[in-house]
Each structure stands twice: as structure tokens, then as C-alpha cells.
């Protein structure tokens, strides 16, 4: 095998000369072997490459996933981690003086030269794809690193971590409240319930006023563009910095192609994209899907060692260790960001004051029309990202980041000790932590399209996780209320309490109040009237009429603004949708006590609509 990979590719016409030159530039910049640049730079599909190597060399791609038998050999050989990774090779088996080594590029003599020099053994090449090599590499070397990232925040400040959902003081407070409530119910049942309902309604009243203020503040930003078309057009490609993207996936084999599609649409220089696909060590199905991927994809597979807790933030913290970008963002597997999103963020960061350390893009759904649930979900998201978050931004209140498409300044993210692996809405938590340090979250005028949950069970799982995460976030940050008040300021503190603490409470209250109302309406339960004496009734009626009307209307406004006119009538079904929230909230409450850091996995890829197909149709 005298000729190099480059020559072979040119001879066979596997890739155009121009593309090959770009791949070589990328390889040189990153100090990668050419084969790695070809695969991870999105020049050649993995399955194509594997088939072509097979044709050229007769070597089949080895499946290394799950092969831990070679680890003992590595310990004997004591080969350094960095070089193994750089040269994309892994020793598999020793037979006498011969060492079988898996390599990504069988035409590259350097791994053999290096290993032979170190071990004195004669190297025989086998072929393995980058994803297999990454699996053995991170599984073997990554455990200690992963353990460090898990406890990073906890070690820095234990009270800021959700590793303990409740502090002893919080538990004592909850126990006292429950005792008082039970005693009240025992001695003064009706009065206690009436007082409880009055307090709940008082909270709803505040919440309605708060939401109305947010909506109006958000509405005024309709024309406000963080980045204009002119500013975007003035961006010079060569000035764009390196940009890291983390894509955590777990059991997402069905949408691996969509990941490639979404990334391929990004209008950003390929050599400055640093994309990490974060795969769990035991996620065999997704790993297999990546190996068999038949389209080029710009990402580097990183394997997350199997350590508890198995959460997205833990994966992101681990991925962060390998990132190079000046800016970093997270996308979910099914995300389709608008092509110019990264450029817009770069421009927005340059325009923003230094205290803006993260920019949140809007999220919306590409499968809004799939069924009733997806329609209602789209209504909710449109309102959330187009009115609520801009409203929070306008009122200078802390913004709980959305699950994806939040773009950070890398140095500031590290300063904040990244994500809390024990918080199941690590993004919301990070937003509050940033605000508490005096930093701000901004909004960028770009949208990422996701897959809306079309299955009820899946929706409840996802929503219960979100609500549990808000509960965790509230409990964590309220541990030092005076300090939080000082760091956030009064207005932001109110925003935090009403938004982060208030949202789960509103969902928890919705179901019992709805049952009481329906019972009174249908069966004329007279005892219900005793629970709403005097003013309590007026407040409850105001909340019922104005709260429902307001939330229905603002949902209409949000989809109207996005031009999703056919969704407007569905806003009338929102009260039913909130009942689902309530069910999810009770599940979240139960889990908060019994499975606090358990990550309710949302299954993606259930939609019949593929974003690639949808965009092709739209085009």
C-alpha cells in the first residue's frame, strides 16, 4: 500500500478535487488525519467510505462497540491517549510479535510506524470507522474525565447543585407546612381549604398580571431585530470565529439522517464548525445508525462514559471538555436551525454589551399540523418564545433558557461551571445562575425547528421532566433567598419567583380547581360555595374568566404573528391542554421526591413528517 488515501481518492474519483483540497485544509487546521477530516467534515458518508475501503483493501469495517476485551492489552502496551486519538487507531489483539490495530485510514503508515517504534511489535491493520474508534477511546479513557465533570458544580458550590433536591432546612419547612395543613384540615376543614384556595387564587391573580405584562412587553419587541439583514450581509466569512455545537442524543437512531440534514443547512464555514455528537456508551442502536449513515455529516462522535446520572447536562459537560469554539451552542437531535442562525449570533454577540453571555433563539415546530397535540404544542411554543422570553428580556428579568439553541460565550460558560448534571432542566438553571452573577441572557431573532411531541405518553414524560426541572431550579436558587435578592434585584427576583416557582404551582393548582369548577357547574355541589366566601369568589371568578381568556388570546396572537393562521381556532382548546400540564406536574412532584435526577427520555423521530421532506416541499 504505497499510495496515500488522497491519491486513491483522486484516482477513483470518490471526491472532487476541490472538496478534497478543503478536507486537506481542515485536516491541517485541526491536526487530523485526512480520513477523519473527510468523515467528520462532512465530505464523505461513513457507509460510502467503509464500502470504498472494502473495495480498495478488502478490509471490512470492524464493529468495536462493546469490545472491552482489548482494554487489558492497552494497559499492557501503555500507549498514550493523545496519540491514539490523533492517529485514529486502537490496538485490538496481540498474536506473538504481531499486533492487530484498528485504524481509520488503512493507507496511512504513520500509526504503524509509531506503534512499532513504541512496542517493537509488527503491526497489522484492521479497519474501523471513527465512531467505533471513539467508542473504545472514550470508554477506556473517559471515565475519570466524566466523573470530574459530574461533580464540577457541586464541588465549587454544593448549594447551587441539585444533587440534593432539598436541603434539611427545606425539608423541615415542607414538613412544618404539611403538618400545619393537616392539623388545619382536621380541626377547621372548610376554613383551611378556603384559606388554601384563597392563597392559590391570589397567586393566580398575580400570575395573570405578570403574564399580561410579559406579553405586552414582548409584543412591543415584534419589530425589534437583534440582527438585521443588512448587518448579516456585512459579515465577512474570514472573520467568523470557531463555533462549537453540542448535539446530545440517546436512542435517536431514527433521526440520525435528520441531524446530518440540519447541520448541512448551516450557513457557516465548515472549517470553523466544531460539532460534537454526544452518544451514550450503551446506545448501540444510534451508534450503529451512525456507522451506517449514507449521507455526509459534519460531526465528531463523542462517547459519554456510562456513569450516573445519565442526563443531558452530564453529556454536555463531558462534550464541553473537547470543544474548541469561541462560542458554543446545543441542538437537540431533531433540530433544524435556520441556516443563518450561527452568523446572527456572532453579530449579536459583537453588538451586545459584555454582560450578555448567552443568546436564546426561538424554538418552533415543523410538524405542527400532525395532530391535535402538536398543534397545541406549537401554540404554546410560539407564545413562549415570541412573547414570554422577549417580555422577560424587555423587563430585564432572568430568562430560563430553552432546551436547545442557546448560544454561549465559551469563556463565560466555563466561568459558570457549565451545566448542573443533576438538574433535569439544566438550561433554565443556567439562565438563573447567569442572572445571579450579573450576566444577561439575550434573545436572537432566529428560529430552530423541532419535532413536536405527537404521542400523549411521550408528551407527559417530557413535560413532567420540564416541570420537575423548574421545581429543582426553584428549590436550588431559593436556598439563599437574601443573597439571590441582592444579586438579582427586586424586579428580577419577582420574575424568578413567579416564572420558575410559579409555573409548576400554576400547573398543580389547575387540576383541583378545574375539578371543583366542573363539579359545581355540572352537579351544583353546594359545599363548593362554602370554599369561596366573599372576596375569594370574586378573585376566583376573575382568574377563571380573565386568566383563561388572556391565555387563549395571547396564544392566538403568537401563532398569528408566525403566520400559522390555521392554528388560531385551536387556542380555544388550551384549557384542556393545561389539564395535561397539570397531570404532568403531579408526576413531576412525585418524581421530585422519589427520582429527583431521573431523566425522562423524550422519544424523537415519532413524527411521520421529516424536516428534510417538509423543507423540500416548502421549497
Amino acid at each position, binding site marked *: 500500500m504505497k499510495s496515500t488515501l488522497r491519491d486513491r481518492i483522486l484516482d477513483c474519483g470518490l471526491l472532487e478535487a476541490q472538496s478534497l483540497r478543503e478536507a486537506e485544509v481542515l485536516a491541517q487546521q485541526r491536526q487530523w488525519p485526512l480520513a477523519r477530516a473527510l468523515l467528520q467534515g462532512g465530505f464523505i458518508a461513513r457507509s460510502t467510505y467503509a464500502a470504498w475501503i472494502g473495495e480498495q483493501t478488502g478490509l471490512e469495517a470492524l464493529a468495536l462497540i462493546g469490545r472491552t476485551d482489548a482494554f487489558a492489552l492497552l494497559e499492557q502496551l501503555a500507549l498514550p491517549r493523545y496519540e491514539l486519538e490523533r492517529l485514529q487507531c486502537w490496538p485490538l489483539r496481540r498474536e506473538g510479535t504481531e499486533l492487530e490495530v484498528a485504524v481509520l485510514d488503512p493507507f496511512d503508515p504513520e500509526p504503524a510506524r509509531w506503534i512499532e517504534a513504541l512496542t517493537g511489535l509488527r503491526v497489522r491493520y484492521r479497519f474501523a470507522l471513527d465512531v467505533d474508534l471513539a467508542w473504545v477511546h472514550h470508554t477506556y479513557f473517559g471515565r475519570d474525565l466524566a466523573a470530574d465533570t459530574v461533580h464540577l458544580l457541586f464541588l465549587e458550590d454544593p448549594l447551587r447543585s441539585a444533587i440534593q433536591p432539598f436541603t434539611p432546612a427545606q425539608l423541615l419547612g415542607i414538613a412544618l407546612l404539611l403538618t400545619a395543613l393537616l392539623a388545619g384540615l382536621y380541626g377547621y376543614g372548610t376554613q383551611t381549604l378556603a384559606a388554601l384556595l384563597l392563597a392559590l387564587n391570589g397567586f393566580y391573580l398575580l400570575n395573570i398580571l405578570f403574564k399580561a405584562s410579559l406579553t405586552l412587553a414582548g409584543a412591543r419587541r*415584534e419589530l425589534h431585530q437583534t440582527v438585521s439583514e443588512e448587518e448579516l450581509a456585512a459579515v465577512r466569512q474570514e472573520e467568523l470565529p470557531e463555533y462549537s455545537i453540542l448535539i446530545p442524543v440517546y436512542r435517536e437512531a431514527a433521526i440520525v439522517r435528520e441531524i446530518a440534514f440540519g447541520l448541512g443547512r448551516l450557513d457557516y464555514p465548515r472549517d470553523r464548525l466544531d460539532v460534537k455528537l454526544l452518544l451514550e456508551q450503551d446506545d448501540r442502536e444510534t451508534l450503529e445508525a451512525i456507522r451506517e449513515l449514507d449521507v455526509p455529516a459534519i460531526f465528531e462522535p463523542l462517547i459519554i462514559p456510562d456513569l450516573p446520572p445519565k442526563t443531558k447536562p452530564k453529556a454536555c459537560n463531558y462534550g464541553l471538555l473537547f470543544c474548541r469554539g469561541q462560542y458554543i451552542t446545543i441542538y437537540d437531535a431533531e433540530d433544524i436551525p435556520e441556516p443563518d442562525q450561527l452568523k446572527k449570533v456572532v453579530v449579536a454577540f459583537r453588538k451586545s454589551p459584555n454582560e450578555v453571555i448567552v443568546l436564546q433563539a426561538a424554538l418552533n415546530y415543523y410538524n405542527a399540523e400532525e395532530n391535535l397535540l402538536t398543534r397545541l404544542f406549537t401554540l404554546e411554543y410560539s407564545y413562549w418564545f415570541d412573547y414570554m422570553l422577549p417580555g422577560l428580556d424587555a423587563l430585564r428579568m432572568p430568562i430560563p433558557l430553552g432546551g436547545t439553541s442557546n448560544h454561549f460565550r465559551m469563556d463565560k460558560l466555563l466561568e459558570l461551571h457549565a451545566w448542573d448534571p443533576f438538574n433535569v432542566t439544566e438550561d433554565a438553571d443556567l439562565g438563573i445562575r447567569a442572572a445571579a452573577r450579573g450576566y444577561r441572557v439575550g434573545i436572537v431573532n432566529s428560529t430552530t425547528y423541532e419535532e413536536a411531541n405527537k404521542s400523549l405518553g411521550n408528551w407527559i414524560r417530557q413535560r413532567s421532566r420540564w416541570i420537575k426541572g423548574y421545581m429543582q431550579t426553584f428549590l436550588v436558587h431559593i436556598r439563599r433567598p437574601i443573597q439571590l435578592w441582592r444579586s438579582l434585584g427586586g424586579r428580577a427576583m419577582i420574575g424568578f419567583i413567579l416564572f420558575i416557582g410559579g409555573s409548576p404551582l400554576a400547573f398543580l393548582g389547575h387540576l383541583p380547581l378545574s375539578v371543583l369548577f366542573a363539579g359545581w357547574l355540572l352537579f351544583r355541589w353546594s359545599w363548593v360555595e362554602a370554599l369561596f366566601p366573599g*372576596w375569594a369568589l370574586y378573585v376566583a371568578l376573575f382568574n377563571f374568566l380573565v386568566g383563561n*381568556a388572556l391565555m*387563549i*388570546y395571547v396564544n392566538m*396572537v403568537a401563532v398569528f*404573528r408566525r403566520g400559522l*393562521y*390555521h392554528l*388560531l381556532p385551536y387556542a380555544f382548546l388550551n384549557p384542556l391542554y393545561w389539564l395535561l400540564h397539570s397531570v404532568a406536574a403531579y408526576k413531576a412532584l412525585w418524581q421530585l421526591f422519589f427520582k429527583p435526577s431521573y431523566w425522562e427520555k423524550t422519544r424523537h423521530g415519532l413524527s411521520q413528517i421529516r424536516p428534510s421532506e417538509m423543507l423540500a416541499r416548502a421549497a
Partner: protein
Amino acid sequence: MAIYSSFGLLLAYGYGFLGREGLFLYAKARLALYGEPARLENLGLVYPPTGLLLNLPGAILGWPVAPVFLSALAGGITLTALVYLWRHAQVGRASAVLVAIVMALHPLSLQAFGTGSSTAWAAAWLLLALLSLTKLLERRISYYLMFCGLAMGAYTLSRFDGVLILLLFAPFVPFVFREYSFSGRWALLAVYLMLLSPALFGLAGWVFLNWVFLGDGWAFLRDPQLYVRIPGVLEPGSTDLLVVRSSLLDAMWTGITWTAIGVPLFPLVVARSGRLSGLLLASWLGYWILAYFGAIRPAAEDLVLLLLLGSAAAFLPGRRPNRLWYGSLMIALVLTIPGSLHLLQRYGTAEARELWSGSPPPIWEQARAAAERLSKAQTILLDDTEGFPIVACFPDLSRLLLPYRGYRFAEALAAPERHAEALVLPDPGYGNGRLDRLHRSFPDWQLEGIAGFHLEERIGPWYIFLRKGEAP
């Protein structure tokens, strides 16, 4: 706006320019809050709730001049919005300011903004809705549609005829739709929903509250104000000139307001579409046909509105108002000044001045006077001259409700001796002549008395009748 509000306060403090409607709303709000027991459901169950709700802060603070301030504030908003609206209609700034000045200083403006906080707020909401619509067409920002919808919702809850006006506006929606970059059936439906949902929510809420507290969701439809406004139109030959003049005053003001609103709106929406004239004509004819067959009973201001729509339909299609149009409008405005001054002189504000000096509201006084003449817990039917017959339950005088649960007004008016122990009626010449249904049930009571009752006493303009013996 601030200047006009201050001007309103000056009128109130300096000249006792306190409006009966405002005082009524204020008194109702006070009673609802501080009666024993406080019955907050009084607010807005029967009367359009916006005025009552706006009076809540004043009622809480015990500040009787609050309704005047509210009226003046609404007047300021209306005129400010009007100037903006005219400017957006590509009317010269000088013309817009001139019209605004005339309207601000016009006695009818002062009367409307000084006396009727609900009316003034209705005008303000309507203008804000139109201004939002104009802004939407100009700037194409969808939140203006939201503001327009919200203002229309507030307007609907400010006047009984709010729904009617809303229906008259409905034909305009396709033109908004056409001017904006919408397309398709869904988009049209969406525009309708955006514009009308707040009003529909408001109405639905109103019906719901009526049902919860009164047992009849449509109780508000039987409000006596509807009966009061109609005589001025249907019985122009009435000997009670004040009733006619009162309606005339309303009509003049409404006409001026609508002209001022309508003129700038037409070139904005209409000039681009010849078909609107057909629609306007159709709605105009439709309205007349409905009125002819008794499906609608138009009030005085509705007639003016219809005239306006009719003339607009004739004026169209597709032409901007010219100098002749502006000139005519200005002349009309100026001509109304002496006439309205004359009418206003007929309205004494003496009792308003008394009220301002700290006396309780007249309805309260009437109820108390009657109650003092009754020895035990009884029901008193009162005519408060504002078009709101009221029942007071002695000794719990806080229950000044209309209609309160369980009391059948129609039956009480047909046979009062069965349902009330006392009646209180004012002299027909008292106040602004807006005598209510109770008064009209016994038109000749001064000559013939009231069967089953005897005149117990006359206190100033008030006549107190007590029942003879027990209920039959």
C-alpha cells in the same frame, strides 16, 4: 391629554360639573364595596362593567370626583387619538389640530366627557381600536391587531350597544385583510378571531356572571337603560321635551364623534376598494330592514350612525374626502356650538354640586328617606332618574341592586302593591329627565296617584308613596 384631564378636574371643582352617570357608577361601586354585606357582583352584572370597574379605585379611596377625572381622562385620550387618526388619514396637521381644538372645547365634548364616564370611555376605546387598525395598515405589525381586538373588547363592555357597533364593523375586516399581506380562508378567519375574540370573551364572561349571580345569563339584556333611550326616538311628540332634548344631545354628540372617526377611516380603508360602498350600502339597507320589521330598535345615536354610513356609501367609491367635505364638517361643528350651549343651560348641575360637597348619592338618600317612614324590613322601589330603577331592601340599604336575585321587576311594575312596600318617584321635571321604567309605568301619577299606595310625603323633588295596608 393631561391638559384636558386637568381641565375636567377644574370644571368639577370650580363649577360643580359632575356627571350623573359618573356619580351613579361611583355610588354603585361604593355600595358594592362597602355595603353590608359587600356585594361585588353588583359591578358589571347588569350595567356594562367597564365604567363600574374603572370607578373602583375612586370608590375605594372615597373620592367622588374620580368619575369626573375618569371622564376627562377618557376625553383626553379620545381627542389625542383623534388627532393621530386624522393625521394618519393624510389630513394636514393644521386641519387635524383645528378639529381637535374645536372638539375639545365644544360644549358637547365637555358635557359628554364631564358627565358620562362610561360613554367617554366607550368613545376612547373605539378610537383606540381604530387607531390600532390604522397603524396596522400602515406599519404592518401584527400586535396592532391585538391592540385593536383588545380595545374593541373593552368597547363592547363599555356600552350596551357595543355588540351592535361591533357587528357594523365586521364588514370592514375583509379590507383590513386585503390591505395586509394575508391570504387564504384561514387567514381571514384568523383576522376575525383576532379582532373579535376579546369582545366575545367579554360577552361570554358577562353572560356567565349574570348566570352565576342572577340565575339568568341574559339578565343584562333587560336593562332599563334600553327602555329609557327609546322614548326619545319613538315618541318625539312627547310632551316631555327634556327627554327628547336629552336624546338629541346624545345623538348630536354621537354624530360628531362618528363623523370625526369615520372620515379619516374611509380614505384609509375605502379608497383602495370600490366594493366597500356596496357593502356599506348593504349594511345600511339591512339595518333599516331589520329595524322596519322590529328585529332592531335603533336608538337616536344609531340613527345618526346609519345616516353617516349611508352618506359614506353615497360618497364612495374610492375617493378621498375633499376640501368641501372638510369644510362641511367644520361648519357643522361650529354650528353645533350655540345649539349645544343652549341645551346645556337646561341642565342644572345644582344637585351635582351638592353631592360634591360631601352629601351621599341621591339614590342613597331616596332609599333612606323612604326607609325612615317604614317601621320594619320592607322593599322599596326607587326611580333614580338615571334610567335605573332600583330596589332597596330596608333595613339593609346596601342592597341597592338591579335586578337582584329573586326580584321580578316586570311583575313588580305591573302590580307594585304585591311586591313593594314603598315607591319613590321624582318630579318629572327633575334632573335630566331620564325617567326610568318605574316612572313610565305610572305616567299620570301626579293626577291620579298610584293604586294601592298613598302619597306619604314630598321632599324637594321626591315623592314617597307607602302601601296602603298589607300586600293583597
